[in-house]
């Protein structure tokens, strides 16, 4: 039998076997059987010694061509089998991706903190610095320097918690303003967030402990328009585009002129709804120009400087924003309430 017949014979075997090979394992076996050290084609190569020197080059070329051709055939089949096997493996590994999962426990800050942080971000962006102060405070800073002398109706025993004649639980964060003015020189731009205390029984809308953020600006030529501009910026930042302020005349002992500040009702954008009782406005904060007497008492010359101040209740903002129906929920710490905040 000539070399090419032998090769063709092997090719036939290979072709048949390739048909049969269903797995990469069988294919590997086939590769060894044909091309391996003891494989059939390799045997032909070895048998070349029996050929005459003239026949050898031709036979060698035939075998080499066959090797290349067989390798290609095997590789082609291998690629097909591999693809098939991968596909099967992927099918096997499929999972029910809709199966319910356990979420990792998500923590979160208290709603008052969330509101406070947002407000702090707003004001620090305008160059305000956060200043804090003691909660148990001297009457002097809490009242006297705020132009609320002893026996002024604004400091009724019903409203203020006293430690003794000279020490109170601060009723607003204004004493921080007083301390700031006494210890710094203008320009002053500070916000004073913190806990404050009033002797109110706890109910759905009152709490003896609550949070305030006051702001104070003292500089040359500060006026009511600056207060309004600052609060307009605050309103848009906290409540969204199109929310603005309405100023109404009011009275506070520490400001003159004083104003109540209403914001456009965010629920109806000023059209009038149940939330704002049809007025289109929500009462949110108070402020005004710092009373010259307060400036003078705190060591700032009112002839040179003027200032504005404002105060915002954080509970009220949080309750409006998250539609919290009862203030008590904020101080109970029930996780069914807290877990809702994100």
């Amino acid at each position: 039998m000539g070399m090419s017949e032998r090769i063709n014979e092997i090719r036939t075997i290979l072709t048949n076997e390739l048909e049969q090979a269903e797995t990469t394992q069988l294919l590997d076996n086939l590769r060894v059987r044909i091309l391996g050290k003891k494989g059939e084609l390799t045997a032909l190569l070895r048998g070349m010694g029996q050929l005459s020197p003239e026949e050898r080059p031709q036979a060698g070329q035939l075998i080499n061509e066959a090797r290349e051709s067989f390798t290609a055939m095997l590789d082609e089949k291998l690629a097909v089998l591999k693809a098939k096997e991968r596909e099967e493996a992927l099918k096997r590994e499929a999972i029910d991706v809709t199966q319910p999962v356990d979420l990792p426990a998500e923590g979160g800050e208290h709603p008052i903190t969330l509101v406070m942080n947002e407000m702090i971000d707003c004001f620090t962006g305008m160059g305000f610095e956060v200043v804090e102060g003691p909660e148990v405070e001297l009457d002097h800073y809490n009242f006297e320097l705020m132009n609320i002398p002893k026996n002024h109706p604004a400091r009724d025993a019903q409203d203020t918690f006293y430690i003794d004649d000279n020490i109170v639980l601060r009723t607003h964060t204004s004493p921080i303003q007083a301390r700031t003015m006494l210890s710094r020189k203008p320009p002053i731009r500070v916000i004073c967030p913190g806990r404050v205390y009033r002797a109110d029984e706890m109910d759905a809308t009152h709490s003896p402990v609550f949070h305030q953020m006051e702001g104070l600006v003292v500089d040359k030529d500060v006026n009511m328009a600056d207060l309004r501009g600052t609060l307009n910026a605050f309103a848009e930042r906290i409540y969204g585009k199109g929310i603005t302020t309405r100023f109404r005349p009011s009275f506070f002992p520490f400001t003159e002129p004083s104003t109540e500040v209403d914001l456009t009702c965010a629920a109806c954008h000023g059209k009038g709804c149940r939330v704002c009782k049809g007025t289109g406005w929500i009462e949110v904060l108070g402020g005004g120009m710092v009373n010259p007497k307060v400036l003078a008492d705190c060591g700032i010359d009112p002839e040179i400087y003027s200032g504005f101040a404002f105060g915002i209740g954080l509970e009220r903002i949080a309750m409006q924003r998250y539609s919290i129906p009862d203030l008590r929920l904020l101080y109970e710490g029930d996780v069914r309430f807290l877990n809702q905040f994100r």
Partner: protein
Amino acid sequence: MKVPMKWIGEYAPILTDAENYMNKMIMIGNGVEGYEDLGGGFSGVVVGKVLTCEAHPDSDHLHVTTVDIGSGEPLQIVCGAPNCEAGILVPVATVGACLPGGVKIKKGKLRGVESCGMLCSSDELGVPVELYPSVGSAGLLIFHEDYPLGADVKPILGLDDTVMDFEVLANRPDCLSVWGLARETAVACGTEFKKPEITVTEADGDVHDYVRVDVEANDLCPRYIARVVKNVRVGESPMWLRKYLYGAGMRSINNVVDITNFVMLETGHPMHAFDLDKVDGRHIIVRRAEAGEQITTLDGKEHPLSGGQLVICDAKKPSCLAGIMGGEESEITENTRTMMFECAVFDRASTRVTSRTLGIRTESSGRFEKGVSVKTAMEAMNRACQMIHELDAGDVVGGVIDIYPDPEEKQVITASCERIAKRTGVDIPADEIVRILKQLHFGVEREGDMLTVTVPDFRQDVTGEADLSEEALRVYGYDHIPGTLLRGETTPGGRSEAMRLKDSVSRKLCGLGFREIMNFSFVSPKSVEKLGLPENDERLNMLPIRNPLGEDTSVMRSTPVPGMLSTLALNMNHGNEKASLYEAAGVFDPIHRTEENLPTETRKLCLGMYGGKVDFFTLRAVAESLLTGFGIDTECEAGGEVYYHPGRRAVLKHNGEIVCSLGEIHPEVREKFDMPQRAYVAELDLNQIAALKQPMGAVKPMPRYPAVTRDLSLVMPETTQVGPLLSLMRGAAGKILEDAKMFDVYRSAALGADKKSIAFSFVFRGADHTLTEDEITKAMNKLLKAAEGMGAVIRA
């Protein structure tokens, strides 16, 4: 303050509806709570005259009447009132009328007799006795006056009016009066304020022959005016007066008392009337009470006086609490013949203190506390005397006693128009400022930019230029204020150090699944006692509040733990499966005071957990990771607070200083706090963390040589503490030891009952070369030897 709109309208036309009026008043600075339609309850009720009144044929109490309502045929109406008789004028609800409560009157038959309407009692119309004295619910309201038949009864009873409820600002006591509000109304509505002309018609006699007044406490009573009325004719007030008082929420008593109340409401000056025959010696003395004196006020209550309170006395004893309440004895009665009107001004603070101490608050005391103008008192007195004459309630004796030793000067302010406007941020023209101030009754003289402003007598709140700014701005309109952003020198701004630390703690804890809570800063002292602290523990010194709301909020907290335990308990008892909570809580130390003598305030951090797979180690891991996050390394030691489980409590120490104490809550404490489940609490100090925290510094180079891991199982007595053991081994292994961990605890009968086997894993790495087997073995031997020193041996 409640005022019927018609009363205000007598002095300043309103010319608009209630809603509009309210808004106009609010926008110039007069708060309004709301308004109420006085006669909202009924309609279609007219004056009718009972022409005939016969007994009903089939009833023993009903009457069949014919009633003339001024138009058409008289109506036949069946009526059950016992006081029904021919000739009386009564309110008649005609067919179609509505009564309070939504009752609609229809034509009907009563025991077979047709009835075309209803004759009404006061009760049926919702008219109180104070407004219209009648027999009340026992029978028909019978009009005493002659009214045209068919006239609507609402205007007659003053119920065709709207009552505005003003929320007068604390700096505007002048607006606690109808005149004050009418002045504001004129400005708000662009109309004119007209005060009635006041004239006093004097009869013969001289006041000084009737009474002597001595003011001994001039400092507390800067002005005292007295006038005397003789031939007093006490009787019922006319309808118009009763209407106004009713609308303002006051009861009509009699003409004399009603005049004092009317004048108080109209002018803002509280007045008092004394029965002069009951004033001993006809001598009035205004002085401070002496300790031990006693007073019986006209509500019949006795008040022992501690001394110092301002009282009005007769020759013998105190009879009135000045400006607060009159005395029972000198009260006006129907037998009063001669009386004295008092119109005085009493000190704000003194009135307030006495009113608070004795627990008596009246319309009068409220006004004196807020401030009554000393300059306008005479006007009020004269108004009262004018009304005595007009109502024919007596004859005003000639002369007046006016003790006013130190008359107040007119308040004059010099101000600049430019500065007034500048403060407001609105370009209010100077002419406009002048016009507004004049409209508000200020006297104004202008010279260029400068104004000389004379403050009207009734305004005590205006003392400087800033006040004038507000006056100008509120009338010019707060709506005109533009919005400008801050100018000038910039400031860096930003959060405080303390706040940044708290934010950072929050971020870490929130990432670990913790929820922030906020508890009250005051607690019950009992809640701290429940912790079972030793007697000398400083946390038992709590700062007491002098006037707490109740025992449960009576002291400032000295520790955040009771609050945390209560919150954990609440969650457990609400059936919440688990909770991981934290609070950044201020605590107060009354012993260690600041330079200002204030208690020390410290910010604590308290963590609390329960439920799920949480145990002591979970919480310790959180605490350690938190501290490590601030670069604070700690060693754990057993022991700590007494309110923790004695076998499950620890402290974390940094260089020997305790930075955290934690544990499982002691079962006894849990019981006291009503906690059905095990719970774990840790406490840290934010001030301390701030002081100890380390900046991160430079990063270490990435390791270049491979690491080698060796595991080791050691058997040791149950009592051996693994923490110190591991520290010891770490120290012994030298610096090629990169990491050491415990990864398993194993107990078995084979090991023995009081033994445990702990498996450790050690990671070694050389900084500048690949470690040799020899180096690693040496290190392992060293740490093993150290372990053997603590009684641990290699597990066989």
